[in-house]
């Protein structure tokens, strides 16, 4: 049996711009893998997929506690560095939504620990008229337990697709 265990699978439709994946983090796992597969088939605008965390009361934390550092790789131009410090979300943690498809993976470290910050490693590939890649890191700078996450687009909607949450099991 694989140590990578499926915890949650959520499907969504064209109109969604803000998605909560709640009650997926627990003491069972320290590392989680999130996958996003979507397509904004209406040809809508490209929108960054930001991430925020849901606290133990069920509220989305949008305080100025998020650091992000992302490298945007372009097929027809030089790469771009995108760094933000102390903002209200992890910018482009799962790349961008796009008309012809987005595939992204993000790892989350220690979200359920009350003594550690929460960390992310992510990469998204997306396509409208050309392929682009967003690769980066994130830190939620609050030593608190979080039980889930929120994904939000800064422009347009997600389109339709699926978010899967896996836990990476460690057997002692």
């Amino acid at each position, binding site marked *: 049996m694989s140590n990578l265990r499926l915890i949650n699978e959520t499907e969504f439709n064209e109109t969604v711009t803000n998605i909560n994946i709640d009650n997926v983090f627990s003491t069972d796992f320290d590392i989680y893998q999130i996958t996003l597969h979507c397509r904004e088939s209406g040809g809508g605008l490209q929108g960054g997929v930001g991430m925020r965390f849901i606290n133990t009361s069920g509220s989305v934390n949008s305080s100025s506690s998020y*650091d*992000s550092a992302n490298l945007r790789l372009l097929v027809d131009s030089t790469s771009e560095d995108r760094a*933000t410090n102390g903002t209200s979300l992890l910018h482009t943690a799962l790349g961008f939504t796009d008309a012809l498809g987005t595939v992204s993976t993000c790892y989350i*470290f*220690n979200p359920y620990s009350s003594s*550690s910050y929460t*960390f992310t490693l992510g990469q998204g590939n997306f396509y409208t008229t050309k392929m682009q890649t967003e690769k980066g890191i*994130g*830190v939620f700078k609050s030593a608190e337990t979080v039980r889930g996450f929120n994904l939000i687009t800064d422009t347009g909607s997600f389109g339709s697709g699926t978010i899967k949450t896996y836990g990476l099991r460690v057997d002692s």
Partner: protein
Amino acid sequence: MGLVQVATNTVTSAVASVTLTGIDSDDVYMVTIVGASPSSGVDEIRTRFTASSTPQTTANYDYANKFFRASAAFINDSNTNLTYTRGTGNIDNAFEGGNGIFYLYNFNNASEYSFMTIESVTFGFSEGRGYAGGTVYTVAEAHNGVQFLPSTGNIDSGTFTLYRVV
């Protein structure tokens, strides 16, 4: 992707290094680090490969990484012929902030170099930091594992786990 656990080590009291072994096939292997914290105030986690469970310390490690920073320009960080490779950026030990995913290639093959991809995220010097890139040990020999160690002092905490990718 399936992952089968091969070895794990959770550090609960200070140790000079952590070694994970058990690579005995030509499969790709993956190592995870979560919550690693050095004993010194801010330090990186370095990596060496093990041959017959002995960490290799000859000056044959090359690496090339993109160093991500949340509050400054990114840096191309590379080096050759070191006695170790860099696994993470600086970790502030107040936040248990050393985390990473590393893939290991060719380790069981005695006639080719061993390679490791690097993706890590830390918090140090008041900003989120990351490394993305890779490393190679330029000696054609078999390796059965990896060692993690700080540049000075000890590792105080963290869980280090080796998986076989199936």
